[in-house]
């Protein structure tokens, strides 16, 4: 291929090759230049953005959660700053070993371990999860000294939610808890997703849940320049978080305490509403629970205890428990009769002690009957026969229609979740409720016991109190609400929750007057007399006893298992001429309403109207002022 050539030929070929090499290298550099042009000019915007994204990291600043206070300013929910020890499971090779080593430094209970295990099941492995909360200063110091031994374990200063009143009002306040997958889904579906970056707790129940938007606040951001390892190099811009708004409730915590103490170890519920505004003064469900247990993930043991208790402390009986109203239903039946024109106040019946329906005797609780009974006496003495007959005369459709006017069988729209609809019995309801055709049929006999608040009747105490308040307010129905106003944490401005009239029931004032007089009579000469003896104010009331278990003629005695005893109920409003409070109270398995429910109502009214506290309740919360002092975010 390379024959012998002259040096000139050699040189010429060499120079040609040099030219080729020069061309090729120029071509290659041209290729590079094109690549640079493409990257730096054509795609400049793209890479520029990529570079910006690279270096600026937005670090969310979690806002302080709003406080919750009762109408008198007693703090029910607040925040405090403390240290928590968090562990990122994915970054720890030997989790058990690490926890074991940590427990040499800080106190880690088996309870804490179980909670971590539960949290790990609920969350992703790269999330940092608390192993111990609220470390003492000494523990913090011990951990810091040994920190190098624990990669993947971090000490974090965080705001903790604290419910200083413990179990008082816990069914109203609810609690916050760690955001779980379901919450996350909901957040991501809403337009709030950005606002929850950095937040790891969310309202789970009660006001904490329903007013989550107000309480949460607006997350701030810090623009931080970071290196590729994510370490912050310097801060570029800081948009502070806007703290959540404070809730000031219509609830009087003292009243709440009076009620909860009055129940003692009994189970039950009480709802007190301010007629004419719908403001809820007390909403009690006993037994209660300590919301503080939930804040950082409830320990499985505590959860089992709460969940498996036969007393069901987690159930909000006032909202979610539907009970037959018993005789407290009678004033509403009477009103329905007046409204529908089926009865006049003076129209009287003769009570033989039973009502005969097709050969079946519906018995009155007083053997031999009450004699001649008009509407006033039917309420004062709680005459069943009067209402058996009334129900039969009205028919189920008319009862359902008129009673429904008072809000029975529909949600009141109160500003916390978990409200039950209850059961307003009607042929339609029965069709919806049952599947088999023979069960779907409404029998005439079923209408009779509806008249005395038994049968399929089932309402919540909220509905009962709501209906009572509506009557007390002359037929104007206000939406019940727990929050009085929302206070901006920034400038202290207040946003009042205005009373929201839902409707005015078409009812003649003299009809309401009839019922009012009769209910006053209950406490003066009827079933409530003993409980309201010596009350300096005029209180309207009605006792009720709801059957849990049919005695089938057997005599009622203390030997009957406690859980099978009747529920005791009482409704009241006072002062009767110008009511400022209306209430409904239920004592589960309390027996006669007059005996166990009415005295609780008396204590509530005594405190609310007279400021009289039962023995054993201090007028002020000791140390409450001091406690509010270190509230973070204030």
């Amino acid at each position, binding site marked *: 291929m390379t024959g012998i050539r002259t040096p000139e030929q050699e040189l010429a070929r*060499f120079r040609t090759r040099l030219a080729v090499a020069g061309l090729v290298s*120029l071509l290659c550099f041209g290729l590079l*230049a094109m690549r*640079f042009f493409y990257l*730096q*000019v054509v795609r400049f915007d793209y*890479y520029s953005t990529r570079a*910006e994204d690279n270096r600026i990291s937005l670090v969310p600043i979690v806002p302080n959660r709003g406080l919750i206070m009762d109408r008198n300013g007693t703090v029910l929910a607040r925040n405090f700053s403390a240290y928590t020890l968090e562990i990122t499971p994915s970054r720890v090779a030997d989790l058990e070993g690490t926890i074991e080593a940590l427990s040499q430094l800080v106190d880690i209970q088996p309870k804490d371990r179980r909670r971590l295990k539960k949290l790990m099941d609920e969350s992703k492995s790269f999330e940092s999860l608390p192993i111990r909360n609220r470390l003492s200063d000494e523990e913090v110091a011990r951990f810091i000294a040994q920190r190098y031994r624990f990669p993947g374990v971090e000490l974090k200063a965080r705001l903790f939610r604290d419910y200083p009143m413990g179990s008082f009002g816990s069914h109203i306040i609810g609690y916050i808890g760690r955001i779980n997958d379901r919450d996350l889904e909901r957040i991501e579906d809403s337009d709030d997703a950005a606002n929850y970056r950095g937040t790891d707790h969310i309202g789970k129940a009660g006001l904490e849940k329903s007013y989550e938007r107000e309480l949460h606040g607006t997350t701030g951001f810090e623009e931080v320049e970071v*290196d590729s390892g994510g370490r912050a190099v310097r801060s570029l811009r800081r948009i502070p978080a806007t703290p959540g708004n404070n809730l000031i409730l219509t609830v009087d915590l003292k009243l709440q305490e009076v009620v909860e103490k009055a129940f003692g170890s009994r189970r039950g519920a009480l709802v007190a509403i301010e007629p004419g505004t719908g403001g809820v003064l007390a909403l009690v469900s006993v037994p209660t629970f300590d919301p503080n247990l939930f804040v950082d993930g409830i320990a499985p043991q505590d959860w089992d205890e709460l969940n498996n208790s036969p007393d069901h402390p987690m159930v909000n009986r006032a909202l979610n428990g539907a009970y037959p109203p018993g005789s407290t239903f009678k004033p509403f039946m009477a009103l329905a009769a007046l409204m529908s024109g089926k009865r006049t106040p003076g129209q009287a019946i003769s009570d033989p002690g039973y009502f005969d329906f097709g050969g079946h005797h519906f018995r009155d609780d007083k053997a031999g009957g009450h004699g001649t009974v008009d509407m006033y006496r039917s309420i004062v003495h709680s005459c069943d026969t009067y209402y058996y007959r009334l129900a039969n005369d009205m028919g189920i459709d008319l009862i359902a229609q008129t009673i429904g006017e008072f809000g029975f069988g529909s949600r009141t729209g109160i500003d916390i979740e978990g409200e039950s609809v209850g059961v307003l019995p009607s042929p339609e309801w029965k069709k919806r409720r049952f599947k088999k055709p023979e069960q779907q049929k409404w029998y005439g006999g079923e209408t009779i016991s509806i008249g005395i608040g038994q049968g399929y009747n089932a309402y919540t105490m909220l509905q009962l109190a709501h209906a009572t308040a509506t009557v007390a307010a002359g037929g104007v129905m206000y939406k019940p609400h727990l929050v009085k106003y929302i206070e901006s944490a920034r400038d202290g401005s207040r946003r009042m929750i205005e009373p929201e009239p839902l409707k005015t029931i078409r009812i003649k004032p003299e009809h309401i007057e009839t019922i009012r007089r009769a209910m006053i009579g209950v406490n003066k000469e009827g079933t409530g007399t003993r409980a309201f003896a010596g009350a300096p104010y005029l209180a309207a009331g009605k006792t009720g006893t709801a059957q849990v278990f049919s005695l089938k003629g057997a005599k009622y005695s203390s030997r009957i298992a406690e859980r099978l005893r009747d529920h005791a109920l009482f409704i009241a409003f006072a002062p009767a001429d110008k009511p400022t409070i209306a209430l409904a109270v239920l004592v589960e398995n309390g027996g006669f309403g007059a005996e166990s429910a009415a005295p609780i109502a008396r204590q509530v009214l005594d405190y609310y109207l007279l400021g009289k506290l039962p023995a054993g309740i201090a007028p002020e919360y000791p140390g409450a002022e001091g406690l509010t002092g270190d509230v973070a975010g204030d």
Partner: protein
Amino acid sequence: MLPVTSFRFDPRKWLARFVAPLDGPLCLIVAAILGFATVVMVSASPERLGTLALNVCVAFAVMWVAAWIPPQRMMSIALPLYVLGVLLLVGVALFGDVSKGARRWLNIGVARIQPSELMKIAMPLMLAWYFQCREGVLRVRDFLVAGALLIVPVGLIAKQPDLGTAVLVAAAGFYVLFFAGLTWRLILPVAVVGVVGIASIVAMGDTICQPGVEWPGMREYQKHRVCTLLDPTSDPLGKGFHIIQSTIAIGSGGVFGKGWGSGTQTHLDFLPERHTDFIFAVLTEEFGLVGALFLVILYILLIFRGFFIAAGAPTLFSRLLAGALALIFFTYAFVNMGMVSGILPVVGVPLPFVSYGGTALVTLCLGVGMLMSIQRHRRRVGT
């Protein structure tokens, strides 16, 4: 009067003797590149400026010495240097230290050396010497011999494995063969096969980059490098990270750059090896397209000065050596800039005169010194 002055110290005369072996244009070009490199290094890694200055001094000394050595002397050391290099490579293969999965270093007691680095210069020297010996009687057979001389060390280096250096050494040898007149009938088919091969790898990247597919003659990490180049996003936090971050750095630099010391990619630790193999990304991020083209122009000037020297060189040996050295500079520059900008796989090739690193700088300056020597002695040997 005159004899008296001749004994006196005359700075001008000393300076004249000092600069005598140096080639003005080459000095200017290399100084410009080094100056630019220093400016970039101030931003990329200011703490290394002291060592950089020392490296430059040593490299300059090497260059000056090389420039003093006449091409004839170079010819006489070509064979011993080559033999030494091959022996060391064999030594590495037998007794070398393993580091990062590759056997590249040889511990010779006082220091650990990387014989492959030596081969970058020894290879073109050897081949140029060989062709010089065969001048006038060049046969096909000689190209086969030259090919064998090339294959042995390249094979040893590739087996270490150090694909980057192997490619550079092979390229250096090939350039000599090319300038010596290797027939186009051999070059063109290989070039075509190469282009087609690369094109098909790019086209079939998805299939052949599947895990488990073994590439004949290549280690897993080499396959990974190529595959990462084809799709950097396949491994954004691992191997692709370097390419992704350096392309971001280059692209975000725009036409005029972010300004000296203002490269966010550089200063926020996103760029890997920012003072060595990836320093070009720092340069382009801070000085933009303008800075990149400025450097490219400096390299073109350097290479073409080399070609110019080669064209005027008196002997076959000096012609082949000068042409090969110029193309070696080109190869370094092109491969480095190509890999940093994401069109070539990441191989450990420094950016000539810019990347921090004493060995590479010394090797390069040795090459420049050889070019200077060839230029200086162009008339000493008659044609």
